[in-house]
């Protein structure tokens, strides 16, 4: 598939080009239009690449710098889904900003440039075959998204941005130590060739990597990329950044940036597993971090008052669930990937609803948001349904992926792990249900007027809900094939 390899270059070049022309656009409206129209077009190109991978096998460019296999193609699809959703929503959201926060020409252009820049950096993380370049991509996303958090400059948004910048830069620097140690574990024999750190090359020689060095490396990688992924206890930046960023940016953070960091960890997982001779050492670490994240998030969810912080802790919980799935063998890996897609779609919807309800009520305090079903039917429905799906109400897709996870735990006879996971899930269920019911019904605040919902906003609520409902009731055979071929790479049976 040499000819198709070029499409991968275009997936990187196009967003960079658009980012470069964004600063010279004539008006705020044109900048937002560019975001709403351009992203779906790039997504179509990506869709073509993804379909090619699942029909004809992995794509590799000349020189082997870019590579798209089942695992990265699956994540690329999730990335594009989240980006398209958030881009369209950004157009709606910024039109409804209160006058004090309205985007002027300058900040709209900055938003467009950084938005496309972030898209290019995240695509680079998924496409790069070289683990060093992948690290460069992860660090680049931190820097490009920092100013998206403080799009509206205020003391608290600056505080959130500073924490994000410092905590994630230092965290990702630790991951760089991990990458160096992986390179060191190759040994002196083949360390001089130009394919050093190419994933396809490392995978072929994974059995010969130095076992102890790979273990040290994986700890650095897990802590480093785990910081960016929001795994507890390295999640301190996450609730601040998610609550202060504008809603489309929060949706992008939760919907894909966290998953991108987990993807970076996933790339190293089969290498460590082969190097340690399949002893399950790395899996146990992932299970540990996953459980801690679920339980820590559960506690904070119960006591939370701010809607967007509540959703942020919810992301910590779900990232924990995905990490837990990754540690639970082949079935767990399928569950984790399925959960990745479900969580991204649902969390994007939840942040959209939180953003619009926040604009309508003028606050994110959940005690003041009441009767949202009456005040705005579309986003009130989106908020209620979104939270219910997130906490795993049947028959939606998140219930199904959590069900797979439970089966994976039972099959591998990890009853202790299962018990802790269920305990966390029950706490989250009870805590979140209280918030969801409180916001949906109750006495309507006198100061808040009803806001009608146009068709476009209804579509943005109904389409994700339908998608999650259908996936919860019926898994298309083609989709099952996609999940399985992606998870095979994680469990080490894949061919480069």
């Amino acid at each position, binding site marked *: 598939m040499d000819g198709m390899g070029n499409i991968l270059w275009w997936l990187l070049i196009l967003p960079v080009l658009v980012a470069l022309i964004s600063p010279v656009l004539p008006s705020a409206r044109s900048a937002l239009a560019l975001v709403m129209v351009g992203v779906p077009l790039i997504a179509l190109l990506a869709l073509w690449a993804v379909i090619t991978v699942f029909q004809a096998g992995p794509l590799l460019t000349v020189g082997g710098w870019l590579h798209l296999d089942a695992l990265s193609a699956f994540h690329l699809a999730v990335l594009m889904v989240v980006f398209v959703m958030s881009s369209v929503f950004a157009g709606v959201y910024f039109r409804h900003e209160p006058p004090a926060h309205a985007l002027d020409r300058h900040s709209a252009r900055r938003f467009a440039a950084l938005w496309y820049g972030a898209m290019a950096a995240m695509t680079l993380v998924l496409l790069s075959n070289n683990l*060093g*370049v992948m690290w460069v991509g992860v*660090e680049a996303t*931190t820097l490009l998204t920092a100013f998206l958090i403080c799009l509206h400059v*205020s003391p608290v948004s600056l505080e959130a941005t500073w924490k994000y*910048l410092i905590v994630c830069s230092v965290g990702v620097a630790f991951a760089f*130590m991990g990458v*160096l140690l992986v390179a*060191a574990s190759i040994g002196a024999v083949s360390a001089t060739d130009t394919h*050093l750190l190419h994933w396809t090359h490392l995978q072929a020689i994974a059995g010969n990597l130095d076992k102890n060095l790979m273990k040290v490396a994986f700890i650095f990688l897990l802590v480093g990329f785990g910081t960016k992924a929001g795994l507890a206890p390295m999640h301190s930046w996450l609730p601040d950044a998610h609550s202060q960023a504008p809603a489309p940016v929060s949706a992008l953070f939760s919907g894909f940036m966290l998953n991108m960091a987990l993807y970076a960890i996933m790339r190293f997982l089969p290498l460590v597993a082969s190097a340690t001779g399949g002893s399950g050492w790395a899996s146990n670490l992932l299970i540990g971090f996953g459980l801690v994240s679920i339980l820590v998030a559960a506690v904070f969810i119960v006591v939370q008052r701010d809607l967007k912080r509540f959703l942020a802790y919810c992301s910590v919980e779900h990232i924990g669930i995905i990490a837990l799935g990754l540690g639970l063998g082949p079935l767990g890996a399928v569950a984790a990937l399925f959960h990745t897609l479900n969580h991204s779609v649902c969390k994007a919807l939840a942040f959209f609803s939180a953003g619009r309800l926040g604009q309508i009520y003028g606050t994110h305090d959940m005690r003041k948001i009441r009767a949202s079903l009456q005040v705005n039917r579309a986003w009130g429905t989106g908020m209620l349904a979104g939270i219910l799906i997130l906490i795993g109400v049947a028959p939606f897709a998140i219930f199904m992926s959590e069900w797979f996870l439970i089966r994976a735990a039972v099959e591998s006879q990890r009853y202790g792990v299962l018990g802790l996971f269920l305990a966390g899930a029950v706490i989250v269920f009870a805590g979140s249900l209280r918030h969801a019911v409180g916001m949906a019904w109750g006495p309507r605040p006198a100061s808040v007027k009803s806001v009608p919902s146009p068709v476009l906003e209804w579509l943005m609520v109904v389409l994700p809900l339908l998608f999650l409902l259908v996936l919860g009731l019926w898994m298309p055979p083609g989709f099952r094939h996609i999940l399985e071929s992606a998870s095979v790479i994680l469990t080490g049976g894949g061919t480069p």
Partner: protein
Amino acid sequence: MHGITDNIMAILMLINLALTLSSRLATCISLVAFQGVMLALLPLFSHEGLNPRTLFLAGLVVVVKGLIFPGLLSRAVRDANVRREVEPFFGYGTSILVGIALLTISFWVGIRLPLPVSETTSALVVPGAIGAILTGLFLLVSRRKAVTQVLGYLVMENGMTAFGLAVVPEIPLLIELGILLDVFVGVLVMAIMIWHISREFDHMDVDQLSTLKG
């Protein structure tokens, strides 16, 4: 055998110690820049020696770490109009003790790590690198000013560069350039953030950035 490399690493460790007890921001900025330049020169004296690739990289690093970074940071300090200086949470006596402890730890760890360090690399490189990483972390958590946090990050990054030199002698050029670009943009973004913070808050004390909790 490793005369020059040994000297460079010894200077690097001394700079780490000096950073833990220096009280003037301007001095700290110069020390970190000097450390970056020293590290940029290190590959020229290693086994690879002088060739277009190492010369090009070294030149680039000297410009970025030796000229651009100190310029950016000094400007941020000037614009923010910082009168008070470094302001550690601990006294300078404690700081220097911590600095010495970190140096000891880095030797202890550096010698025990089972790294495939080649014969041609000086034995001081790994301990020096770990020492710089630990010192950077200490500066990050123990200082009050936003600028000193950036300096801590840079010292940490210097340590990782040295570590990379010791364990992976030939990182592909593309990756080196990517890393340098990331660090460059990183410091640029942080400098802009400091400017915003000082304008919005009339200070740049990170311990007062504590509204967001829970």
